[in-house]
């Protein structure tokens, strides 16, 4: 690894009203290294990187490139200094092709006004071959996979001459396979002299891909250490500031009668494609059934059908002995299905609503929250106050709008609402997506508590680690079919193989 600082941030301080986002942060990037920036949600990682990308101006501190102070007043200045950023949410134009997106704003021209498509295509192909980022220049963005789109974003930065690449939570949207491919790409990029800042809160990834790790906690740098020799436990402690249980502590399950039975269920999606095919299983009281699978193999449609949000084309759904096939969402709720949705922003919360209103999203229609159509705000607020303290939701009073909370605290609100509804069956879809270690620990502990309280928990997750550490039984779903059942002692390799269709039903 080459020595000497390529980029240095010295004493960066950034204040927002009422908040010290970065407090005297110093950070150094060496040429050709992968430097991970680790921290919980709200630790100040994104603020620091937005400063580096010219989106924010620091209140104090200086930035040096090749030992010379530079002024990053805008993203344009950052790009001119060779700094590129790949955002967590991609900024691509869906109806344009890969090549068009990459050359956008700096298009090669012919005769001054016409875009030179051949040159664009050629340059994209050159770049793509040089760094091993395989893309089809003529594919339209909306027809490419998420992993492909990320490559396009990286190529876009490289096309603009980036020497330093900031990757903001790049694996959050990727499947395990795509993540592995991304790590290959990162190695190929550093092999050719690029330097990378890798923002993450996933400890195993950081250890796998980074050379050095800088940990931020509440706006302050805890330490910068070499990745070699570091452990997940050690990093977690730095990040959270206390010991964290990475493995879930739970007793063996004591399952009783089945509370949810799914029989020969088939479901089609909005395009009319059959996404769930003849699926049967049951979840018993007091057990966590994990459903593992690569994204978009029918998990969402399966959950929606059980939650009364999507019609089934064949089969039956029985909740505690009652046939709830094709019941609507309201009846499904009343029948005792709790549902932690996979997307808390799109579905789980009404973001402009107050926490009180969000916590009452199901219960508002029942006494004592309302009577004869009239809401009782006092009861609703009292209930919210109780739930917020019970679930340790921080940063919000009952009247705070949901968008003002951090992701972890938002998920606690969803969890509080679903558990407080006293469901027989709790569906947890990607319950820890985007959460940091501390919040993940909290959610996992609560899910196991619900199991021990005699509820049937259906856990659907893309994170194999989560499935393995929480589930009492594991089903693998592939192309809409259940292709295998495994005990929790199964290895990631066994599951991974089944998830990609490598093995028939066990």
């Amino acid at each position, binding site marked *: 690894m080459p020595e000497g600082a390529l980029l240095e941030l010295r004493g960066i301080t950034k204040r*927002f*009203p*009422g*908040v*010290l*986002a970065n407090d005297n942060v110093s950070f150094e990037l060496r040429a050709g290294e992968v430097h991970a920036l680790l921290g919980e*949600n709200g*630790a*100040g990682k*994104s*603020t620091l990187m*937005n400063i580096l990308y010219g*989106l924010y*101006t620091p209140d104090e501190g200086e930035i040096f490139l090749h030992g010379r102070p530079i002024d990053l*007043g805008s993203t344009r200045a950052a790009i001119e200094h060779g700094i590129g950023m790949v*955002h967590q*949410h991609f*900024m691509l134009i869906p109806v344009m092709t890969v090549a068009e997106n990459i050359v956008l704003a700096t298009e090669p021209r012919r005769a001054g006004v016409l875009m030179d498509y051949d040159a664009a295509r050629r340059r994209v192909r050159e770049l793509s071959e040089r760094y091993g980022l395989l893309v089809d220049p003529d594919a339209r963005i909306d027809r490419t996979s998420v992993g492909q789109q990320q490559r396009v974003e990286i190529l876009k930065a490289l096309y603009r001459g980036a020497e330093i690449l900031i990757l*903001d939570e790049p694996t959050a949207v990727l499947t395990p396979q795509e993540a592995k491919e991304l790590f290959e790409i990162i190695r190929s990029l550093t092999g050719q002299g690029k330097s990378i800042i890798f923002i993450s809160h996933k400890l195993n990834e950081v250890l796998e891909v980074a050379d050095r790790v800088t940990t931020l906690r*509440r*706006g302050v740098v805890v330490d910068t250490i070499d990745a070699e020799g570091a452990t997940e436990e050690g990093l977690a402690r730095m990040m959270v500031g206390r010991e964290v249980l990475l493995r879930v502590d739970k007793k063996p399950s004591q399952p009783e009668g089945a509370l949810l039975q799914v029989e020969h269920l088939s479901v089609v999606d909005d395009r009319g494609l059959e996404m769930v095919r003849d699926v049967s299983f049951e979840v018993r009281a007091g057990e966590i059934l994990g459903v593992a699978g690569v994204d978009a193999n029918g998990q969402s449609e399966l959950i929606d059908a059980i*939650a009364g*949000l999507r019609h089934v084309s064949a089969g039956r759904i029985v909740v505690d002995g009652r046939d709830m096939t094709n019941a*609507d*969402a*309201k009846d*499904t*709720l009343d029948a005792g299905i709790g549902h932690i949705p996979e997307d808390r922003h*799109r*579905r*789980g*919360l*009404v*973001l*402009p*609503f107050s926490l009180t*209103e969000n916590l*009452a*999203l*199901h219960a*508002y*229609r029942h006494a004592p929250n*309302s009577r004869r*159509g*009239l*809401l009782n*705000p006092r009861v609703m607020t009292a209930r919210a106050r109780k739930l*917020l*303290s019970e679930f340790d939701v*921080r940063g*919000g*009073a009952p*009247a*705070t*709008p949901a*968008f*003002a*909370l*951090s*992701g972890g605290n938002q998920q606690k609100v969803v969890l509080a609402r679903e558990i407080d509804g006293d469901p027989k069956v709790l569906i947890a879809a990607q319950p820890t997506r985007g959460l940091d270690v501390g919040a993940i620990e909290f959610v996992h502990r609560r899910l196991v508590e619900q199991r021990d309280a005699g509820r049937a928990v259906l856990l659907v997750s893309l994170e194999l680690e989560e499935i393995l550490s929480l589930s009492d039984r594991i089903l693998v779903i592939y192309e809409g079919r259940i292709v295998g059942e495994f005990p929790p002692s199964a290895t990631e390799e066994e599951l991974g193989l089944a998830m990609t269709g490598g093995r028939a039903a066990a």
Partner: protein
Amino acid sequence: MTDELSAEEAIEPPPPDGIPQPQQHFRSRFGGLKGAIAPLLTTILAFFMGGLVVLLTGKNPIRVYKAVWDGTGLNWFVHVGHHSARVPFGTAHMWFPWDTASIAAQNLQQTLLVTTPIILTGLAVAFAFRCGMFNIGGQGQYFAGTIFAVWFGSSFNGMAPLLHVLLCLVVGTIAGAVWAGIAGILKATVGAHEVISTIMLNWIAIWVGSYLFGQGGPLQNSAQKSIPISNDIFDGAKLPVFWGLKLLQGLSIGIFIALAMLVVYWIVINRTTLGFEVRAVGFNPEAARYGGVSVARNYFLAMAISGAFAGLAGAVDITGWEYRIGQNDIQLGGSSGIGFIGLAAALLGRNTTLGVGFASLLFGALINGTSGRQLDPSIFRPDLAGNLTTIIQGLVILFVGLNLGGVWVWLKRRRRA
């Protein structure tokens, strides 16, 4: 990240001993009474630019605005204590009453008469807005209310007076609700966009009205066959005038109906399960569906309630002071009628109860203050003044669309950068 303002990116400050800390900076910037700042700035800026236009015509903007102000009758409120009465051995200064027969009082009556339907059509737009829909059909729903109020008001001669006027108001309200409900059903069932369908329904209402009151139309005046106008409604179908003279178009109790509807609006939106559902659907239909709310049902209901407000506006105008309607009124109103001014009031008032109330008063006062009857022609030609009103209205809507508050935050950030 581009959404730098999202609080999720901001640091979570360590809460002292687990006491929940509301994100105060965020709420103080956008919530509470401070939400009124942007609309106020918007209005001031619009008036300022209107003043520049007046300057261009070679007139003194301050004098013109003073004349408009006097024309609105709002100066009546500051006349307190100006009256004195002779008593033995001197003059007693009376602090009260206001002179209820003054010019200012008459002007104010007219202003409030115009404000009344603006409040109601403003509420119509606001209610649909809260459910995430843009009801552009306020004008058509207003006409639906007008047509039915005229029809029922000019029938049933000899009906008990209170009953008759109530009947007119109720059928007008229902007519508006049905008219908007059509757009609601279309959206709920086949997903037809409410902007398109309400505009189309406007035109249908306009031409149906033109036919009904046109020469030879079924509701045309039975005495004067050559005039395209409706029959007058019977006296029993008229709302009581409580201030001013009925002959001089005094103020009817319709203004209290509008004020009561402001209260009804607040209660329905904030204190009922229906309002809860409507707002949930408006902010995030998918989350509402997940919460067990029928999105389609709420689209229909919100649209029907929205139309009910607009229909009531039409009925109140008929029973409050118009008493009849002409083909001409309908065709003119089709492009610049009260329904569209309600739209502006809802936009400026940000769909809040107080906001709609004050914005309606602002537009009502402007329209009346610059009308030919009220404005002193030696100061500014009233026909130009009417255009000034339109300019100010247009600027207000433009600036609301620009979201001045957002622009201000953006400028502040750039200055720091």
